């Protein structure tokens, strides 16, 4: 039995008086595809943001790939991680955002090659060759020289996925990556993610409102409400026979709102 690649241990997160996560623990196995579902404000996006070090935690520990994320050993004790430690840890993790967050002043190719060249010292030619491979994989090779503003939402998101992959992270975080897209553009992004899941053994955490996709994509589904895991299980069990009433209510509502399962 391999050990978990992510071990979230009793973390708390609050914004002032508002507690978003309260004593949350999750283990994620290497290569696992995990879907986080639940109503808005339930804390699922916060978990991804915490893993990407975009939000600090107020308590608890997170271990990623054998090392503490927010702590580091110092003279036999665990102390708060410094920027250098965080940079080392971030190498293991990539993230794709709801609103793409491409660099608008750089063409598609430069968006992808920037970080490998600056953070890993990859030579320009090698970085571009790798970027073209990735663009090919997401079906955007012919747009390498386009500016982000010239692309549709779905195209932007596919570029953003390629950009995150260029750093070869072990863990990929997808934060509602189709929520900002027109309905007809959703499928092209989901197809890229299906391909990615099939062709790599990356660990993937997915926050989504696309229940049908979560069902097909995930090995395990966690249903969140108010910062706690209400129910978790295999997609078939979760979507066909949810045990908890809150899960049932949520799924009923989201189906009524037009999302297919």
């Amino acid at each position, binding site marked *: 039995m391999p050990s978990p690649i992510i071990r979230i241990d009793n973390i708390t997160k609050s914004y002032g008086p508002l507690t978003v996560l309260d004593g949350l623990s999750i283990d994620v196995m290497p290569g696992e595809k995990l879907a986080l579902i639940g109503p808005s404000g339930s804390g699922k996006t916060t978990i991804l943001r915490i893993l990407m070090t975009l939000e600090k935690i107020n308590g608890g520990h997170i271990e990623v790939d054998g090392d503490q994320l927010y702590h580091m050993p110092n003279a036999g004790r665990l102390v708060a991680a410094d920027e250098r430690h965080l940079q080392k840890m971030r190498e293991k993790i990539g993230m794709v955002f709801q609103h793409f967050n*491409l660099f608008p002043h750089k063409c598609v190719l430069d968006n992808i090659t920037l970080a490998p060249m600056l953070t890993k010292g990859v030579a320009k030619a090698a970085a571009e060759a790798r970027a073209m491979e990735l663009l090919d994989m997401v079906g955007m090779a012919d747009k390498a020289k386009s500016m982000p503003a010239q692309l549709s939402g779905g195209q932007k998101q596919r570029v953003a996925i390629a*950009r995150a992959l260029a750093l070869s992270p072990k863990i990929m975080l997808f934060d509602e990556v189709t929520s900002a897209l027109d309905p007809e553009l959703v499928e092209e992004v989901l197809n890229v993610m299906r391909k990615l899941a099939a062709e790599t053994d990356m660990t993937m955490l997915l926050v989504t409102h696309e229940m049908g996709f979560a069902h097909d994509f995930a090995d395990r589904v966690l249903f969140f409400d108010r910062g706690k895991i209400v129910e978790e299980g295999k997609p078939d069990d979760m979507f066909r026979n949810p045990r908890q009433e809150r899960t049932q209510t949520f799924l009923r509502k989201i189906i009524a709102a037009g999302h297919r399962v």
Partner: protein
Amino acid sequence: MIDWSGYIGLILQGALVTIELTIMGSALALVMAFAAGLGRLSRFLAVRTLATVYIEFFRGTSIFVQLFWVYFVLPFAGVTLTPLQAGVLALGLNVGAYGAEVVRGAVRAIGREQHEACVALNLGRYHRMRHVILPQALPLMLPTFGNNAIELLKGTAVVSLISLTDMTFQAQVVRAQTGSTLIPFATILILYFAMACAISAGVRWLERRASRGLDGVRV
């Protein structure tokens, strides 16, 4: 009948001094604007404080007083400057303080999502600023920088007070010698205006270049 050609030549000599002051003053102002503007965004309190003190002091006192300090008071501290050096220093420091707020505002206008993308891509602070934030902030700064440069150009007239023979100084010389106010002051009016137009055109060109591909769209 007055022979104007010699007098106009005098004013043109003054115009060269004005241009020199404007270019060198703008260069210093630009350096100070970035140093103090980014300094105010520093994570170190000491740097932020230093930048804030500089900005507030030079914005809060008049260029006239600053110039007198630089030229007449600094020598008591053992620093003697030529009138040109003193003029460039006072103008550059003064306008740089305004420019610093422009730099700070433009950098802060770049959305949080760009910073977050940088964190997710593991870019360090320097790379973030150099490759992502500043290239997007620059087009936002340029229009106001153009304003500041024109302000600086017009501000150069005060250096005549420390005996620097700029355009305004020469116009007064011509006025004193010929008794005509209209001709010398009409001449420098046109020259100042032409210089300001040149600055505007140059900044517009830079704006087009810097925002190429951005199309005013934030992604």
